[in-house]
């Protein structure tokens, strides 16, 4: 057995188990040490990732593949986990929460996401998805003393379980049709099955898989759980889910649909394109009415998912490449936003948009950075989001889906509405009278600075990241 193929996952899961084991023996005062251990584990897994082969070798009896895409997603998930870990410290300690268990669950969830991304077989993909999902359900409900968190966890669990069931049903139909669970051979067999009188099952199976993954990435009309779950979850978890869980969903889409069902791309391409347009429109329009900043960001993330889906819908190498690039941009913008929100909520600062009044004068740096991340979401030039959207629009035009490009452009214009309303509240509205001091924790500041640097780098010198994402998408469309 070549365990070498999954060293990063082994390290991360091992650190998670170590955290669970140590947690009861570490006093409340020393819980911070467990956080450092988690950071160490994530960094170690990242280093191990760099030593993994990336030439497309298949390992562990065909269960995993080590290609550039695996490397890309592993690094993406680990970076996100690192940033989230950094800004969770302060958040958890203020609320008297158990750091060890939280970090352990975070490690397990990230392991699951990584297994999903390197899967070369339906079974390992599904197992990775379940590992990620189960950890996420618990993380969402983690705030024991908050009713909102429990409610969010339950909603996420019920919807997630339904999605898992749909996925499993679809996958079992696929196995019945093709007799194989290996992703590289699926597509041909499915295309062959299409010619038979029972070809309808193929569409049923593909539809079930797409619907289930749409649930997982919160694409409309399967997004209804997202605002509630994202609003009620502990704020660091919201950021983690938006980035890691959704990116993992996209990894699964790329593996299972772009690669696995490649021969059927003309059909699912249209379906996904329709889904993309619907998702971005619904997300953007609903976000206009939101009063709570986490809820607004939840709808904004639905809209972002719509943009990202467009890259997959066109089913070209360029499309997947732009998707990957946009995922990096999305990571930095989202986690940056959440670093700011957590820094603000540290001293009881509210989560309502109205609470942000006058922030520009009280904390110009925080307000400025939040504005920067919003600008990246909208796609203002010189930010990461601009380059990302440029890539997606280009891919849509090249893939003969110009209407998709128009959709992205129009939706970006709509989205200015709600981002602007927050910015106006921060910079123009007067400071409320009973405003306390705001101080960001050290970890939070680090992740804030890292995110800001990421957003600016991606906006100003995107070449390196373009090459990375194009390289990573090389073997996807076969």
């Amino acid at each position: 057995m070549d365990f070498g193929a999954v060293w990063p996952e082994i390290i991360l899961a091992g650190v998670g188990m170590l955290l669970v084991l140590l947690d009861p023996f570490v006093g409340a005062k020393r819980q911070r040490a467990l956080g450092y251990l988690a950071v160490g584990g994530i960094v170690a897994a990242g280093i191990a990732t760099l030593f993994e082969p990336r030439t497309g070798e298949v390992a562990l009896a065909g269960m995993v593949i080590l290609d550039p895409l695996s490397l890309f997603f592993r690094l993406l998930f680990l970076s996100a986990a690192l940033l989230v870990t950094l800004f969770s410290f302060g958040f958890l300690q203020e609320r008297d929460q158990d750091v060890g268990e939280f970090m352990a669950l975070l490690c397990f969830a990230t392991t699951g996401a990584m297994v999903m991304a390197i899967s070369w077989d339906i079974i390992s993909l599904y197992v990775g998805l379940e590992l990620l999902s189960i950890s996420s359900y618990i993380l969402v409900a983690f705030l024991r003393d908050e009713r909102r968190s429990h409610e969010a966890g339950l909603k996420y669990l019920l919807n997630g379980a339904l999605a898992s069931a749909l996925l499993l049903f679809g996958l079992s139909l696929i196995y019945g049709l093709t007799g194989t669970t290996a992703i590289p051979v699926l597509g041909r067999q499915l295309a062959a099955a299409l010619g038979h009188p029972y070809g309808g099952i193929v569409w049923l199976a593909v539809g079930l898989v797409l619907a289930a993954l749409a649930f997982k990435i919160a694409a409309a009309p399967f997004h209804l759980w997202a605002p509630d779950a994202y609003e009620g979850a502990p704020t660091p978890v919201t950021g983690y889910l938006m980035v890691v869980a959704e990116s993992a969903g996209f990894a699964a889409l790329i593996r299972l649909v772009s690669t696995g069902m490649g021969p059927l791309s003309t059909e699912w391409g249209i379906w996904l394109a329709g889904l993309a347009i619907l998702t971005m429109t619904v997300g953007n329009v609903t976000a206009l009415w939101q009063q709570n900043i986490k809820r607004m960001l939840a709808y904004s993330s639905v809209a972002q998912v719509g943009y990202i889906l467009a890259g997959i819908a066109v089913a070209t190498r360029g499309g997947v490449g732009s998707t990957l690039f946009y995922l990096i941009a999305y990571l930095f913008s989202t986690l940056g936003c959440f670093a700011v929100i957590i820094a603000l909520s540290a001293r009881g600062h509210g989560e309502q948009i109205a609470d942000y009044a006058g922030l520009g004068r009280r904390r110009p740096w925080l307000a400025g950075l939040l504005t920067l991340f919003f600008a990246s979401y909208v796609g203002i030039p010189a930010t990461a989001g601009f380059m990302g959207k440029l890539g997606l629009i280009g891919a849509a035009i090249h893939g003969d889906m110009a209407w998709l490009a128009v959709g992205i452009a129009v939706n970006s214009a709509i989205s200015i509405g709600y981002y602007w309303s927050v910015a106006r509240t921060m910079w123009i509205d007067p400071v409320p009278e009973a405003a306390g001091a705001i101080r960001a924790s050290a970890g939070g500041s680090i992740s804030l600075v890292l995110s800001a640097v990421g957003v600016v780098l991606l906006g100003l010198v995107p070449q390196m990241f373009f090459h990375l994402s194009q390289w990573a998408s090389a073997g996807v469309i076969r």
Partner: protein
Amino acid sequence: MITFFIVAAVAVAAAIGVIAARNAVHSVLWLVVHLCSLAVLYMTLHAEFLGLVQILIYAGAVMILFLFVLSLLSARSAPNAAAWEQPRGQTGLAIAAAAVVAALVLVGAAVGNIAAPTQGAAGGAAAFGTVQTFGQALFGPYLLPFEGTALALLTAIVGAVALSAGHDDAAGRGLPATVAAEPADGAPIDVSHAAPAEPVATGGDR
């Protein structure tokens, strides 16, 4: 083949029973019947180990816990009519959808090579489904999914502990009102129902 049709019919009927039963405990029992008939189906397919483990794990452990929780929460057998949302057309829709899927699968089974696995049934007919081949498959090609599942279960246990245990200081304070003050409906059985138990007089010293 006859065994298959009888057991399959039982399995389907039990599955319908699960969703049709108005009483949660009855649903659980139907599910037990369903799981046991699946176990029999596995055995007729010579997957002996899988069949036995199916009974041991699902019927013997998982469903018992379901039953345990249900009899703890809803001790009374009378279904609470108010708690049931009347289905509005979903039933018909579900039946139609199930019929379409079943028809397609039947067509596939009758016309095509739908059930011709190209991998999986390795190891030859004689050893198939025995503990040895099962173990070798589990710890050989399927090691990664196996360990991943183990990790998922560990996560679930950690989560159950994290969400429910400890935090004595939080008891009652932060719990949702509905849980903290369970309405009379959820309380274990009225005292009025507990008829004076007949003294059981048998065998003298039992």
